[in-house]
């Protein structure tokens, strides 16, 4: 989980209901083709935020991945970014190939959004394309020499490869544990845990919960929730961060527990996590 504002949209401590009441589903879908670029940009975000998975929405969002009208002075593609982010939330596999194509986009943020959404869609067909992007940061088994290397959205790529269980990439992920940017290190530790299940990588994240910067502690909470690392439960409950974020993180642990047991009984671990969550409400 990276710490870009968009990622926090659903989990900021203030993550309060954005009132979408002013827009209907039909209007939002129609607005994707509005002459007003601002309306298009907002509609793409809105369709993702409210999980409007209608075929018409998906089709138009996929078309928006090739938009040329909405450009920033630096050459970025705002509408493509929002369309890319929305398609991850809608869970429609039709978006997989168009999103893979976005990994070649000249705009860093479009590549990042595509990697994040491909992670959410969970289709392993994107693994080779993600690897291609990851190795941009490597010379053999080491990081490229000019550091910090910010040329690719490594955080999102590493997280996607971990979630997709691409165990063949372990040797390529490992060097990123030494990346000068902490968030990239965490993403690598998170992926390594998912790929190897070795507690050492989970512990590395737990240690980071005691770090100085709130921004980083927030990111680690999201990482631990994503990997469901049960031994982190107490550390999560005690870290200095907003309760909303701790609750989301612990929910990740809880759901991980429930996924791994027979549906008839709650494990000791699940009950422990529930009691911690109750104490944070």
């Amino acid at each position, binding site marked *: 989980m990276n710490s870009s504002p968009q990622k926090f949209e659903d989990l900021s401590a203030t993550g309060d209901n954005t009132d979408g009441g002013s827009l209907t589903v039909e209007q939002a879908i129609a607005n994707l083709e509005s002459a007003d670029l601002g309306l298009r940009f907002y509609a793409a975000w809105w369709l993702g935020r409210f999980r409007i998975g209608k075929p018409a929405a998906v089709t138009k969002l996929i078309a928006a991945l090739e938009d040329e009208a909405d450009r920033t002075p630096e050459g970025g593609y705002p509408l493509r970014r929002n369309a890319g982010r929305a398609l991850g939330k809608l869970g429609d596999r039709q978006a997989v190939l168009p999103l893979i194509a976005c990994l070649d986009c000249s705009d860093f943020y479009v590549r990042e959004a595509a990697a994040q959404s491909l992670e959410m869609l969970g289709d392993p067909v994107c693994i080779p394309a993600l690897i291609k992007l990851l190795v941009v940061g490597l010379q053999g088994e080491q990081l490229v020499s000019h550091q910090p290397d910010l040329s690719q959205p490594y955080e999102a790529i590493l997280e996607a490869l971990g979630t997709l269980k691409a165990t063949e990439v372990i040797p390529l992920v490992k060097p990123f544990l030494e990346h000068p940017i902490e968030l990239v290190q965490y993403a690598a530790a998170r992926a390594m845990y998912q790929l190897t299940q070795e507690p050492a990588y989970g512990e590395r994240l737990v240690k980071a919960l005691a770090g100085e910067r709130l921004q980083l502690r927030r990111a680690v909470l999201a990482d631990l929730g994503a990997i469901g690392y049960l031994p982190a439960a107490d550390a999560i409950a005690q870290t200095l961060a907003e309760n909303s974020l701790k609750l989301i993180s612990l*929910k990740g642990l809880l759901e991980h527990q429930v*996924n791994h047991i027979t549906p008839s009984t709650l494990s000791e671990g699940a009950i422990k996590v529930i009691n911690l969550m109750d104490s944070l*409400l």
Partner: protein
Amino acid sequence: MNNSDLAPVLIRAVEEADSSDRLVDAVQELAAAGIEESVPTLIAALGYNNPGAAVAAVDGLIAIGEAAVSPLLELIDDYNYGARAWALRALAGIGDVRALDTLLEAAKTDFSLSVRRAAARGLGTLRWHQLPPEKVESVQTQVLEALLLISQDPEWVVRYAAVTSLETLAIAIPAAVNNAATLPDQASRITNQLQQMLDTDADLGVRTRVKFAQEKIQQQQHQEVFPPKRKLQETEVEVPHRGGGRR
């Protein structure tokens, strides 16, 4: 030094703290002293946008208890929703029934999910024995209606908090009242709501919490059938532990 000498010293330490860590330490010390004069300072600490200090202040306010209720209720109208959420957590921890209307209002209508969450939790931690016996049933019905409503909140964490309170309410009903006329109805409404959530809630975490609530309610009913030797005292009505988020 006795308490009346200690209070100004500890309060000054909070006011003069010049770093985030020092503030947390100073608030923790003030909270641990449990002095009534410190209430305004502890309440101010809820609004510093410092989670560590706020957690410590909430613990201190809960320990002080009833004397903190009125000032906390006044704060709820504050513009700062961060502080409002912490204030509601403190009220939920104290469980004073004077907070009832505030909790109902906040749980149903507040725009901030952290405020709704804390209020939903607080509706389940009220100390029923503070009410005159003839009022208990109507208030419980009011709380139940509110909980059924917020069990449908769009945010998972608010629904989760509502489940914890449906659980404590289901357990409190037999303990608190002796009017059997409407009780089975209240209990069965809770049971039905929980089962419906188990079957239909979109969120696995919420469904898991429902299952846990159902188990606890069943255990308690089992005890009703085979009552323990001791009579259940009011003081044994479980007040959820407030975890202290400390490093």
